[in-house]
Every structure is written in structure tokens, then in C-alpha cells.
């Protein structure tokens, strides 16, 4: 933990509101990105952001510096995201187009942009790849999805991921392996 973050936490624990705001600003972009990547909905990502940092605010006094603040924060965030993913599994729904304050955006925007510029065959291939990727992700358990997300997109080490999810590095490794195998099963003949 950097000395600067350490100082901010201690000041925030003493009730310094500005320090808490700075602490939030240090981490909130990656929290929002994680929530957006997992949930693909600005509204759900906003809910995760709000709930996570409110929990941090209410429980910061109990943070004892026995792990990094990043790990502690991500334990909270991943728990909230896992709950959301589990609820979705029950509802068996996941929207492709999401509404934002700037109008609807497709969660696979980068593919759409590329497809628009490419030839029809390439465009069809991209659409197919997009569908397969979504199917591959839907086939993962919430925990597998989380481990993959944290390792692939957030670049966290499996040791840290295990710590965040309250499990061992070995279990996180197994989870990543299972996730990859499942996704390869869906995408295998296509890439």
C-alpha cells in the first residue's frame, strides 16, 4: 500500500471527508470498469459503485491494515457483483443494448464499429464471434466469470484474486482453467 493511500485511509478513519473523497477517486474508475464489464449496464454498474463505496464508508473504521486496501475494497465489490450475477442467472437475462444518459450503446460497440468498416463477410464473421463470446460468457458460473474478469481485464494475480474471493490461489487457478475450457469449447472451432 502506498504511503499516500495509507495516509488517506487514516485521515478518512478520523472523519476527514476530503480524504475519503480522494480515496474513492483513487480506486473508483477501476471499480466502475469492473462492474461495467461484468454487468454491461450503466445502471447496474452505478448501483454497484454506490453500494460498494457506501459499505466502505460505513466500515472503514474496521479496516486494520492487515491486507491491502485494494484487496479489502475488491472483496466488497466482488461480493456485490457476484450477487448481481447470481440474480441474473436466476432471471436468465442479459441485455445486449444498454441505455445511457447519452443514448443507447451496444455492449459490443467495438465489434459494431469494426463491422461497419469491414466487408460483408468480415462483418458476418464479427457478428458470429460476438454471439459466440456472449454465449461463452453466459455459460460460466458467476465465480468463474469473476475470476476470468479479474485476471484477464483487471490483470490481477490469481493469488490476490483468491484472497479477494476468500479462497486459495489453487482454487482460483482451477476456476480460471475451467472458465477457459468452457470458453474454448464454445469458441474453439471459430478462432
Amino acid at each position, binding site marked *: 500500500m502506498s504511503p499516500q493511500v495509507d495516509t488517506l485511509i487514516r485521515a478518512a478513519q478520523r472523519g476527514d471527508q476530503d480524504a475519503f473523497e480522494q480515496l474513492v477517486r483513487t480506486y473508483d474508475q477501476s471499480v466502475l470498469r469492473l462492474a461495467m464489464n461484468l454487468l454491461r449496464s450503466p445502471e447496474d454498474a452505478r448501483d454497484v459503485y454506490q453500494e460498494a463505496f457506501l459499505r466502505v464508508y460505513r466500515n472503514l473504521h474496521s479496516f486494520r491494515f492487515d491486507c491491502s486496501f485494494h484487496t479489502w475494497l475488491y472483496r466488497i465489490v466482488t461480493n456485490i457483483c457476484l450477487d448481481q450475477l447470481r440474480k441474473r442467472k436466476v432471471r436468465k437475462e442479459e441485455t445486449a443494448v444498454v441505455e*445511457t444518459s447519452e443514448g443507447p450503446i451496444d455492449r459490443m460497440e467495438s465489434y459494431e464499429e469494426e463491422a461497419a468498416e469491414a466487408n460483408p463477410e468480415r462483418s458476418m464473421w464479427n457478428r458470429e464471434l460476438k454471439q459466440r463470446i456472449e454465449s461463452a460468457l453466459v455459460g460460466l458460473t458467476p465465480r468463474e466469470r469473476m475470476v476470468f474478469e479479474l485476471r484477464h481485464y483487471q490483470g490481477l494475480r490469481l493469488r490476490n484474486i483468491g484472497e479477494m474471493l476468500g479462497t486459495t490461489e489453487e482454487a482460483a487457478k482451477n476456476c480460471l482453467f475451467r472458465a477457459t475450457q468452457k470458453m474454448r469449447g464454445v469458441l474453439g472451432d471459430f478462432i
Partner: protein
Amino acid sequence: MSCDSVSKLIPLYFYGEVTPEEEDQVDQHVHECAACAAELEQQRAMAAAFDRRQAVIPPALLEECREDLMAAIAGGAPRQVKAVKGPWKLFLEAMSDTVAGFGRMRQPVGAVLLVLVGFLAARFTGVSGGSVSGVATNNAAMLSGSHIPVVREVKAEGDGTVRIQFDRREEVSGRLEDRNIRDLILAGSREGDPAVRVESVSLMKSHVDSSEFLDSLLNALTQDPNDGVRLKALDALKPMSGDSRVIKALSQVLLADTNPAVRMQAIDLMVTRHDDSLVGVLENVMQREDNSGVRSKASKILKDWNASIGTF
């Protein structure tokens, strides 16, 4: 090692999560086994496909989340669109607040009034360095002396100008040639908000030949904790890839940056031209790098340059 064992290790090998011994075994095996080499290639292709699936965060979302959070902590309602208050209304509000608490706050109130008088005098008498909107501001005065502006948002406009929001409600727009705009962009590159840093750093690209922007970009590249900012700094430094200070910073990034994507781009930028003095750096990468993609890129360049990759 059997194909079955290697197959189980391939995802972990790809993510750099195997022991050095396992890594050697997988390396050796895929070198000799076409089926496992193809499986590894498939893993890379799959990861590349997922790389392109990053969610797009609507630009205003982060700021809205922050406002909602602070409102909730303060016990208020969720964020609402704030009406823009004119300077006269602000002054009247300040006056009414001060009069209400005058009895027990005589001295502090006097100080507040003096500051207000000074503030208004400065606002209505100064010169302006750019076109200013919102609450009228003498930005030359704001940026002079010891005042360090808090940059809230930096946005490039289509006509080549930049619009910057700073401090509480000040806004200024102008071109990068404007001294005040440049100072605000430099301040933006040091802000706590990574989104502001990303935007500020991106804008420096068109004037990277200026020494202050170059210094700031090198600092962002080697010191910024945010991956996005470092990647933007790398992109902005492209026109200066032959500069000795840039090469030195890139070498540092290659050996110390925690993000493989940043290291990968640093290599790309570093080897835009053949330079024998970089061979040592790349050999060092081969020795220390734990990401197979970065290692493979460094190895390919060394081979292309007919340099040894096995001197360690």
C-alpha cells in the same frame, strides 16, 4: 510432460501463472508438439478476441456516480441537475448566510466579507486569456501566483480548441498555444481523477515537442498508477520515439511496468528503428519478463536484428 498435462497448464502459462519449471516444460513441449502449439495459439487468439470486448464507460457516468455517492454520504437525495447560479445570487446567498450567523461569528464573517469583496473586485477588473463561460472568471488571475487550480474536466472541441472546467465552477476554452490552457493541461495531468489525467495527457500529443509537455508525459509514463494514463502517455510520445530521454523511459517501463499491455506497447515504440544500443535492454527483458507475449515479441525483434537471445 504429456500433452494432457500441458493442455491443463496452457491457460495458466498464457497468464504467467505457472512456476519457472512448469514454464520451461511447457516451452519445451510446445516447441516439439504441433498439437499443443496450436492449442496455445488458440488460447492467444481467444484472449485477443476478449480483449476487444472491453465495456465502454459513458463519459459522464463516473462523475454522476461520484456525485450520487457524496450526496448519499451527506445524507442528501441522489444527484439532481444543479441550476447555474449567477454571481449576484451567489453573493446574496453568501450575505444572507453571513448575516444569519453574525452574532456568534463576528470575526470569521468579517474575514469572509473581505474575501468576497476581493473576489468580486478581481472578477470585474481583470483581463482574460481565453473565452470564459459559466461564472465569469479572470483565468489569468486564477492561474497566477500560488493558486493551484483543481481541474475537473478537459475536453477537446472539434475546432481545435480545448474546454477545461476547473476549481468549483470555472470554465475556460482556448487553444493549446494559450499559456493558461497549457498550464491547466499540465495541472490536469497531475489531478487525482485518472479520467482528467487521461484527457490531459492525450492532448499533449500534438505539442509533444514542448519541453514541459515532454517532461509531463515522461513522468506520466513512468509514475502514473493508472494503466490507461500510461498507455495514453505512450501513444502521445510516439512522435518522439527517437529522443534519448524517451528511450530511457521506455527501457525503464519495459523492466518495471506491472501491466503487460503497457510493456508490449513500449517495445513497439522502442523498436521503430534498429538501434544496437537497445539489444541489451531486450536481452534483459528476455531474462526478467514473465509474460509470454512480451517475451515472444522481444525474442522476435532480437532475431530480426540478428542479435543473440541466449546471452544470459
